[in-house]
């Protein structure tokens, strides 16, 4: 009997592997093989100069050397970081504030569902269409300029897309609008997960609401804050649709809003496979490190919950 049972057990585990086949087959074909070929491509000189095809010639790590010593990569990395920061800092602060408010039953906020629904909505909007919308709204003769002039705030149209701060600010504003609702909901779920007796005890001890927030909520929220921070950094590295559409791929004014993925896209379109490969490898390493951090932050939280 015992033997039979064992046998049936084995035949069940077989199904575990069978059910994993579609995932791994597709992953290997459409992700792993392309990734390996990206590494391979990064070691070759392979581009078009006019009508002439150069390469592919094996050049070792030369593409990386060119990329890392050129000022371009550094500039575009800096652009990406600056735009990300302008959007992310207000996003985190406002999300924290809103999450604390939504989780505070005593504020008796009306229509919480409505507000949550509204602030999350931009997250689902097509980024390219949203960016096109902002392009028309903030164009020189667009509705925003018209409104600002009518209200007497401006004398003449402000040319948002010819101004470094204007363009970067618009991209950051869109990123902010698209992500602050999402972050608020994540943080709020985190705050609601905190043991309510802690807050009651703090109140008995005479702590103010702000003090309770600083000394109880923030420290206990740290794992989720770390998760939000790193996933947002990964999202920041991926920034593409919004600046690409807003600036029509140019990253103007003067390439100050060109991001890393826009740079990659440019190499992909001009069929400079060596450079595109090397840039992809660098981005893979960056996102890989950040992904590992996300992995550890997730597993740490899981252990905490179950351990």
């Amino acid at each position: 009997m015992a033997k039979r049972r064992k046998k049936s057990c084995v035949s069940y585990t077989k199904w575990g592997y069978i059910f994993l086949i579609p995932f791994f087959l597709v992953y290997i074909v459409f992700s792993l093989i392309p990734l390996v070929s990206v590494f391979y491509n990064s070691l070759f000189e392979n581009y078009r100069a006019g009508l002439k095809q150069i390469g592919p010639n094996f050049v070792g790590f030369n593409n990386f050397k060119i990329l890392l010593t050129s000022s371009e990569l550094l500039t575009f990395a800096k652009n990406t970081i600056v735009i990300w920061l302008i959007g992310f800092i207000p996003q985190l602060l406002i999300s924290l504030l809103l999450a604390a408010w939504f989780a505070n039953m005593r504020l008796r906020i009306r229509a919480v569902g409505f507000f949550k629904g509204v602030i999350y909505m931009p997250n689902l909007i097509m980024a390219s269409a949203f960016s096109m919308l902002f392009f028309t709204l903030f164009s020189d003769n667009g509705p925003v300029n018209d409104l600002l002039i009518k209200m007497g705030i401006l004398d003449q149209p402000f040319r948002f897309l010819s101004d470094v701060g204007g363009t970067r600010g618009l991209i950051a504003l869109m990123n902010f609008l698209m992500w602050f609702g999402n972050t608020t909901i994540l943080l709020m779920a985190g705050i609601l997960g905190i043991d309510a007796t802690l807050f009651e005890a703090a109140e008995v001890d005479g702590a103010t609401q702000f003090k309770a927030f600083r000394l109880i909520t923030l420290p206990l929220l740290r794992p989720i804050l770390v998760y939000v921070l790193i996933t947002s950094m990964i999202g920041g590295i991926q920034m593409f649709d919004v600046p690409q559409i807003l600036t029509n791929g140019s990253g103007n004014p003067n390439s100050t809003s060109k991001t890393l993925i826009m740079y990659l896209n440019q190499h992909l379109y001009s069929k400079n496979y060596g450079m595109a490969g090397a840039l992809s490898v660098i981005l893979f390493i960056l996102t890989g490190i950040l992904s590992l951090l996300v992995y550890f932050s997730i597993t740490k939280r899981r252990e905490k919950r179950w351990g």
Partner: protein
Amino acid sequence: MANRRPIKIKPIIVHIVLILLTILCLFPFYILIINSSRYHPDIQKGFSFLPGRAFLYNFNNLLADPNLPVLRALRNSFIISASTAILSTYFSTMTAYAIHAYEFRGRKAIFTFILMIMMVPGQVSALGFVNLVRRMKLMDNFIPLIVPAIAAPIVFFFIKQYMENSLPMDIVEAARIDGAHEFRIFNTIIIPITKPAIAVQMIFTFTSSWNNYFIPSLILNDAKRKTLPILIAQLRSADFLKFDLGKVYMMIALSIFPVIIVYIFLSRSIIQGVAIGSVKG
């Protein structure tokens, strides 16, 4: 008693801030509705808070434009997004079930592996992906935009979380005793139980595929095969001043509003889905 006063003022401030943020979120879409219903000369004259009467005019005008095959793009976007949503959730549920229900060797290692690749963005392998698709002769085909969604680590992770809380193995044991085949158990028992998580993930995969621009723009070149985001980019790169603005706003509205309309009905469960992913994560 001294404590009561600030509590009364604070809710007012809270509500004012919330209303301001609501206006900030909705205002762009408000102008979008207004301007997509106005004639081009009126839009150029300046801003208006009231809608015009050109909604149908702009709509017909847009559909008649041979350079912007919008209906075609709507159809293409829908085919790709719907297939992606179905395949991605079905096979992610299957993968999650494999990890959740079977005690096979290497299970933990595989789970760790999937978690680790979860956050690596698709853009970094785009070069290899496009070259592979070219070699497979699948350029201008929807298959390379649909099939890769079968391996969706994030969808897998959400559904796995859901199973941990709501899929008791006793049910599976009972079905096995009744002689049900493992594959049948999966289709007739596991899928229905996991339905709430699948529904939420379907919405997410549908919208992310609907909104996707980077990879489709590298794969689809044929005008008949283009999706909405590619048309939007095309609209942006065309000479803007020559364009009928009513048409431009209508094109943006057509890309955005299908998602908003669905969202209005499902926002509750969508927001719950986001929150579940966070707490359980």
